[in-house]
């Protein structure tokens, strides 16, 4: 094996696939009221929070798991899962990073997410979520000075109950679909962000999600509120150990932008995708929804989805405020036996609302990719517009790409434009690049990054380079 082959071999391994041997506290297996009470109790939640959970759980009994999506999966036994798992060392919540279990610090270090003071990433505040709990949040003091709240959801429930009560469930109500409602019942932790009026958040806020324990679902809940005239850019990253079993990740993310506020939400999703034969991997069934509540508000979703066995999500914008803007930029990559059914929903309610959808899907190996998107311009949303561009790139001839747009224009003053292309990386293109000195992996990286450029440009600079590499790595071994 020459060095190049070795490099490729190394890259092929999912480098985040290790697991941390750490003592856990778990809720008893299964889904029932007692487990929900256990979760609420261990988090010392107020009664209103427990009621919110129980109400959701009650409603869940009458809901059926949806099955209209393209990627099918074996039936999930919800009674055979753990709904809460936390490192034991977190039960007496450490007051500072110095008290944090060294094993946890080590885990994040290995993931390239330094939490310690001296090694922190410049200009990025991080909330680290390990299985069911937030283990650390960096740069808290600096943010507090500006009145910015950035903490774990559990902490927000304790310390900022009024804000949580006012906004939680207003974008994704307890009366929503199956997975969202499941999350409302059993969510464990996640991030909470509040940007006060007129404040421009001076750094990127970031949450790093890590699934560690086996047979455990991760159900985090994130709530971001941008008050009038404020701005925040938020990024989430995710990884998980390599396991033979499929693990469920059903998060809810709610964004609320008031008058003249802007939220930019970026995701780099790299959950364990399963092995080459499609064994194992994360089921990433996530509900993400943003409400442009105020006038002139803006919400922009950017996602780079490279991991998970199945990705099933539609980060959406409800454009309620007049002149509000919703954007969705997406790169979804499936390789080997991965499957994705992803896209967005743009619901235009206010006047002069604009939305833009740029979706780039890349499928390789035996994988299957569906773009599904709804543009719904309501009767009162006069003078609104949408532009959708949806491009698919195929590698090889055993993968699939599908585009399913749903377009509803209910007034005469609005317009919708939809463009879609499907192309293939040809042997000739690869040969051309190789003749110019690039090896096949570099050639694919170059072509694919060119294909995704419009979306990569949307990512915060610190992450654009990472994402670019990730795009290349995700497609390792898909040629030749």
């Amino acid at each position, binding site marked *: 094996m020459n060095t190049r082959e070795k490099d490729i071999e190394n890259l092929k391994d999912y480098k985040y696939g290790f697991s941390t041997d750490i003592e856990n506290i778990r809720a008893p297996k299964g889904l029932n009221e007692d487990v929900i009470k256990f979760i609420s109790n261990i988090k010392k939640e107020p009664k209103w929070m427990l009621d919110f959970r129980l109400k959701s759980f009650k409603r869940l009994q009458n809901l059926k798991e949806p099955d209209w999506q393209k990627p099918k999966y074996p039936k999930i036994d919800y009674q055979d899962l753990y709904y809460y798992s936390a490192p034991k060392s977190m039960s007496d919540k450490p007051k500072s990073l110095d008290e944090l279990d060294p094993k946890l610090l080590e885990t994040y270090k290995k993931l390239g997410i330094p939490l310690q003071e001296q090694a922190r990433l410049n200009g990025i505040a991080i909330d680290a979520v390990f299985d069911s709990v937030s283990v650390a949040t960096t740069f808290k003091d600096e943010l507090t000075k500006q009145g910015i709240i950035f903490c774990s959801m559990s902490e927000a429930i304790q310390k900022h109950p009024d804000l949580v009560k006012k906004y939680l469930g207003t974008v994704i109500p307890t009366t929503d679909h199956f997975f969202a409602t499941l999350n409302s019942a059993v969510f464990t932790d996640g991030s909470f962000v509040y940007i006060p009026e007129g404040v421009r958040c001076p750094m990127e806020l970031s949450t790093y999600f890590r699934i560690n324990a086996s047979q455990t679902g991760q159900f985090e809940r994130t709530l971001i509120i941008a008050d009038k005239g404020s701005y925040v850019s938020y990024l989430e990253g995710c990884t998980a150990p390599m396991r033979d079993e499929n693990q469920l990740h059903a998060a809810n993310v709610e964004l609320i932008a008031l008058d003249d506020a802007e939220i930019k939400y970026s995701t780099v999703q790299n959950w364990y995708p399963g092995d080459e034969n499609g064994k194992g991997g994360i089921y990433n069934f996530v509900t993400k929804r943003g409400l442009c509540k105020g006038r002139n508000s803006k919400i922009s979703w950017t996602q780079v989805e490279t991991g998970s066995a199945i990705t099933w999500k539609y980060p959406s914008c409800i454009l309620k405020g007049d002149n509000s803007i919703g954007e969705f930029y997406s790169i979804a990559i499936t390789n080997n036996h991965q499957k994705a059914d992803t896209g967005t929903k743009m619901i235009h309610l206010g006047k002069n609302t604009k939305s833009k959808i740029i979706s780039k899907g890349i499928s390789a190996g035996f994988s299957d990719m569906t773009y599904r998107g709804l543009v719904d311009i309501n009767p009162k949303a006069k003078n609104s517009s949408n532009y959708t561009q949806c491009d698919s790139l195929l590698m090889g001839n055993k993968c699939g790409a599908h585009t399913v747009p749903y377009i509803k224009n209910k007034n005469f003053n609005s317009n919708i434009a939809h463009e879609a292309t499907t192309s293939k990386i040809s042997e000739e293109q690869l040969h051309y690049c190789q003749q110019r*000195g690039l090896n096949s992996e570099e050639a694919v990286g170059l072509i694919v990054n060119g294909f995704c450029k419009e979306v990569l440009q949307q990512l915060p600079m610190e992450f654009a380079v990472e994402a670019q590499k990730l795009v290349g790595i995700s497609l390792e071994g898909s040629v030749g």
Partner: protein
Amino acid sequence: MLKINNLNANIEDKSILKDFSLNINPGEVHAIMGPNGSGKSTLSNILSGKKGYEISGEVLFENKNLFELETEERAHKGIFLAFQYPLEIPGVNTNIFLKTSLNAIRKARGEKELDAIEFLKLVKEKAKELKFDEEKLNRQLNVGFSGGEKKKNEILQMSMLSPKLSILDETDSGLDIDALKVVSDGVNTLRNKDNSFLIITHYQRLLDYIKPDFVHVLMNGKIIKSGGPELALELEKKGYENFN
């Protein structure tokens, strides 16, 4: 520099090259002329490393077995192919492609990679020499380029990468006289005692601008006659059909 001994190439049981032999020494310019389907493009494909052919025989490049080298390794060692149909790569900026290519090759040769400033200086210089529209350098690679511009872009890449052996696969087809002159100037500038060229063409006219040392006539996968530049003129007069 390049030694081809009894090269046979088949594609799906169809024999294309038959006991093809050719020897190119450093500094020599060889022209291969032949009608459609004579095996000209197959030859350039095989030398560049394109897959899909059944091959027997021997090809040595600087005394190394070419068939043991990957396509990109051949490029690193100094083989350049100006494609008959240069490929379009949407989304990839021409400058970025050129820089990535140049640095991949420099790296493989153990040379220092060029930074953005050094690269831009070099590419602008070369573009000027070749009368290549600088604005095109910021466009997607070959997307929306005319046939002539694509061919000029190949020559630009050739002059950037300074190869030892350049293979021009019908680079002249579809070019007007002005573009033909630019392409020829590009080749003549690079021509010296160390660099060799293999020019594949249908027509004699390119050879008015690039004087070959040797001309070979390829018919049915075999060189049927070799000679000096006068052979091209004779061929032009008689046509391929009556040449035998």
